[in-house]
């Protein structure tokens, strides 16, 4: 019988966990321990998630009636810009890779740490500096360009564009450093016996993400540098007033920002692969297909950016080419979704909170993926572009995909990270509220968008009012669900039961050490002999289906 790894919990906690191995504030501020950095990232991204979430609720409240209510046009524009910019650059992009990825990657690989621990610490501080820049921008004259900083609006508006873009520029370097670190870690730090076919799928997803981070983010950096220079010196690359081409900015910007969409969603895919297998006690269906489709998505993501420019005055030929390539991304994505569903076949599914989130993800992400099809179909996109349909689509992918997966992953690995169990009943209520609230909020917006409701309007035609009100009420339910989740998770830190080392009976390496792990992760370097999804419940005798 081939067992994957030594899955018993051989050592009682003889060593203190990473949380208490060193004490004092300084031990946290200068730590190079990937687990502590993961927690620090987690706290930071959750803080910004909260801020940007509050902004979202403010926006939805303003949209409850067609007229201007309690915000001026300028305030509304600043609020939606900050909602977008904070969510994208300070929350979603670092959420799974930097928070969960940092914590889990070395553990899953059986390594003591990432390849460059000090770089990891630097990356966290670079991120913090970026956050400070964005906060300064908010506190000075705000930012009203939309998170996409399109020229020539961004070169002519009176708000703090330079400060904010400098912040995003810096955040980009944090992302690059994290990505670089992870690529090297995956290549060089795997434990003995862990070849590419034995890596957990979360690692594959993080690896693909890291490759995108390394290849795409530098272009964002140079784009923003050019924008800053355009704004301060007027060199005339992007600003038509000085002889430039504003559509060129969109090319530069989306060369990064489209792959960035996959920086956001690929790690979510990885989490779902882990959750579904572990909680259904089944080997993942189509390991190679899922692993390689992550890489395929990462590569194809670089040649589809032009679908953001279908109506921007890009040439028709380029539009056709980009439309075709965009459909190509759909194939590996479909393969993944089908494989997850097939994994459930013949399983023994345990419905705890993480599993609920996994199941919710399959619903929301499928909607998000399918509604991408009309947007990549040239003719229909002409109608739907920059309407609420797009808003609903990317929220289904970013929130329904990434955030649901992120919260699911947080529940899945919460016992490992904190050493505490949360209340399962509370968790399921939270999941239900999030799922219902989310669908009510954004499903409505598909209809709004198809009816022609444009994005970024603080006041709208009265015909749209009913649907806007439904959406606003949905957003309150969603907010309630998220708040509830925050409350019981924090509560578990003080009152939760002590977590066993492997509460879900998983086979991957992070569960083979104590909860929470010791400072150097493992008492002894683990050796891997098999698949990360080889559960003891699998009926080896029923080998007929096994090819």
């Amino acid at each position, binding site marked *: 019988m081939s067992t994957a790894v030594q899955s018993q919990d051989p050592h009682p906690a003889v060593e203190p966990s990473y949380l208490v191995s060193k004490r004092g504030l300084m031990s946290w501020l200068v730590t190079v321990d990937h687990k502590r950095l993961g927690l620090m990232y987690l706290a930071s991204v959750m803080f910004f998630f909260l801020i940007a979430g509050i902004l979202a609720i403010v926006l939805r409240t303003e949209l409850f009636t067609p007229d201007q209510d309690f915000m001026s046009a300028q305030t509304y524009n600043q609020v939606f810009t900050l909602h977008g910019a904070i969510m994208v650059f300070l929350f979603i992009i670092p959420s799974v890779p930097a928070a969960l990825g940092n914590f889990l990657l070395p553990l899953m690989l059986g390594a003591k740490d990432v390849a460059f621990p000090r770089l990891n610490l630097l990356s966290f501080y670079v991120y913090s500096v970026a956050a400070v820049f964005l906060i300064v921008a908010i506190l000075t004259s705000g930012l009203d360009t939309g998170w996409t900083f399109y020229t020539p609006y961004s070169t002519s508006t009176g708000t703090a564009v330079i400060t904010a873009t400098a912040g995003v520029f810096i955040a980009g370097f944090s992302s690059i450093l994290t990505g670089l670190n992870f690529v090297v870690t995956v290549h060089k730090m795997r434990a003995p016996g862990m070849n590419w076919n034995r890596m957990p799928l979360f690692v594959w997803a993080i690896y693909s993400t890291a490759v995108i981070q390394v290849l795409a983010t530098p272009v964002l950096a140079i784009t923003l540098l050019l924008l800053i220079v355009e704004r301060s010196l007027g060199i005339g690359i992007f600003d*038509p007033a000085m002889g430039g081409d504003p559509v060129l900015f969109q090319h530069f910007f989306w060369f990064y920002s489209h792959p960035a969409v996959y920086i956001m969603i690929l790690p979510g895919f990885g989490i779902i692969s882990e959750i579904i297998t572990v909680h259904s006690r089944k080997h993942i269906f189509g390991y190679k297909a899922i692993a390689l489709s992550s890489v395929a998505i990462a590569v194809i993501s670089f040649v589809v950016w032009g679908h953001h420019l279908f109506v921007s005055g890009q040439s*028709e030929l380029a539009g056709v080419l980009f439309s075709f390539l965009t*459909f190509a991304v759909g*194939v590996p994505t479909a393969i993944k979704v089908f494989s997850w*569903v097939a994994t459930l076949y013949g399983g023994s599914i345990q419905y705890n909170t993480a599993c609920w989130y996994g199941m919710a993800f399959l619903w929301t992400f499928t909607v998000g993926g*399918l509604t991408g099809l009309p947007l990549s179909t040239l003719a229909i996109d*002409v109608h739907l572009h920059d309407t609420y349909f797009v808003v609903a689509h990317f929220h289904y992918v970013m929130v329904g995909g990434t955030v649901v997966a992120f919260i699911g992953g947080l529940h899945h690995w919460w016992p490992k990270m904190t050493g505490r169990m949360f209340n399962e009943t509370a968790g399921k209520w939270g999941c239900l509220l999030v799922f219902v609230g989310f669908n009510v909020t954004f499903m409505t917006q598909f209809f709004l968008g198809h009816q*022609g409701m444009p*994005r970024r309007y603080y006041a709208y035609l009265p015909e749209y009012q009913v649907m806007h009100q439904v959406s606003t009420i949905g957003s309150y339910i969603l907010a309630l669900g998220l708040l509830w989740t925050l409350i019981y998770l924090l509560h578990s830190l003080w009152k939760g039961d002590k977590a066993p080392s492997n509460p879900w009976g998983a086979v991957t390496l992070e569960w083979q050490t104590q909860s929470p792990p010791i400072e150097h992760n493992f008492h002894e370097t683990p050796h891997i002999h098999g698949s990360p999804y080889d559960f003891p419940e*699998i009926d080896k005798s029923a080998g007929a289906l096994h090819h």
Partner: protein
Amino acid sequence: MLFSLLIAPAAAEAALPPSNPGTPPMSDSPWSLLPAASANAEALDTLYIFFWILCGVAFVGMIGVQAYFMWKYKKPAHGHAKTSPLTHNGKLEFIWSAIPTVFFVILFIWGEVEYMKQVTPPPDAMDVRVTGQKWSWTIEYPEVKGCSLTNDLYVPVGQPMRLTMTSVDVIHSFYLPAFRLKKDVVPGRYTVLWFEATKAGLYPLMCTEYCGDEHSSMVGRVHVVPQEEYQAVLAKACELKQGDAETAEDFGARVVTRGGCASCHTTDGTVKTGPSFKGLFGKTETLADGSTITVDENYIRESILEPNAKIVSGFSPQMPSFAGRFDDKQIAALIAYIKAQK
């Protein structure tokens, strides 16, 4: 709100031709689809419905299978069931990669064919020139000399129209939901949009590229009128002369509508991008350089023709010049109108 213009208030009524069928811009029911008022819209709706059926089947099928598995393979109350050793199945994986691919190719080709129709104007199309600015659309008809309308596009039924569009400040996007069409309006370049309206009526026209404070107010109307009435309707709409029985103040109100002034200047005292007209005349304002100026006829005239020459402190230089668009009589009427806003 500017949107009230769309529901035709008094000021807008004047610009509306009497022959206009006066249908509301959209159906009252929030759940009904938009009217399909062009050949393109009808073709696209077919494609759109095909997409919905396709995605609906895919979604229901996938979620159905998921739900069945979730119910069938629930963990027993005690312990775990033995689970299937299935790890992959090449044939199945090939099939579920191939089927979406086929549908993607169909969608792509269909979409591409329709798109090519959307972007290729027929040679007999009638020309209209559109200029986007913060935050209004200027629409000019080459065949009517000196006709420049704000936020009102007049279109005959069954006549292909070609809009050649540009912007004078930032990127806007010209969106006609009832025709399922949109195209960005880019400063420093020309973009082209064409359509053929099939149903008479009044339809909205919106900006869908974020362009600043009053982006939401950059809303206009498309008047689709029967071909035989078109010339008369357009001539009437283009006319901007003081009527015999019309006071200068009333005429000024029409000039304000035509100029799209309301997107930045209110008459109720609220300060938007520009100062409110209410109580503006005779006020003493402080300029950015600290000097003061009294708002009199000369200053208003200068501000219309050369808006950025003297900016009152607290405002930014955003206003486009109206030199060449308004003649002296119209400016005089405008001043009379502003004087009347006490």
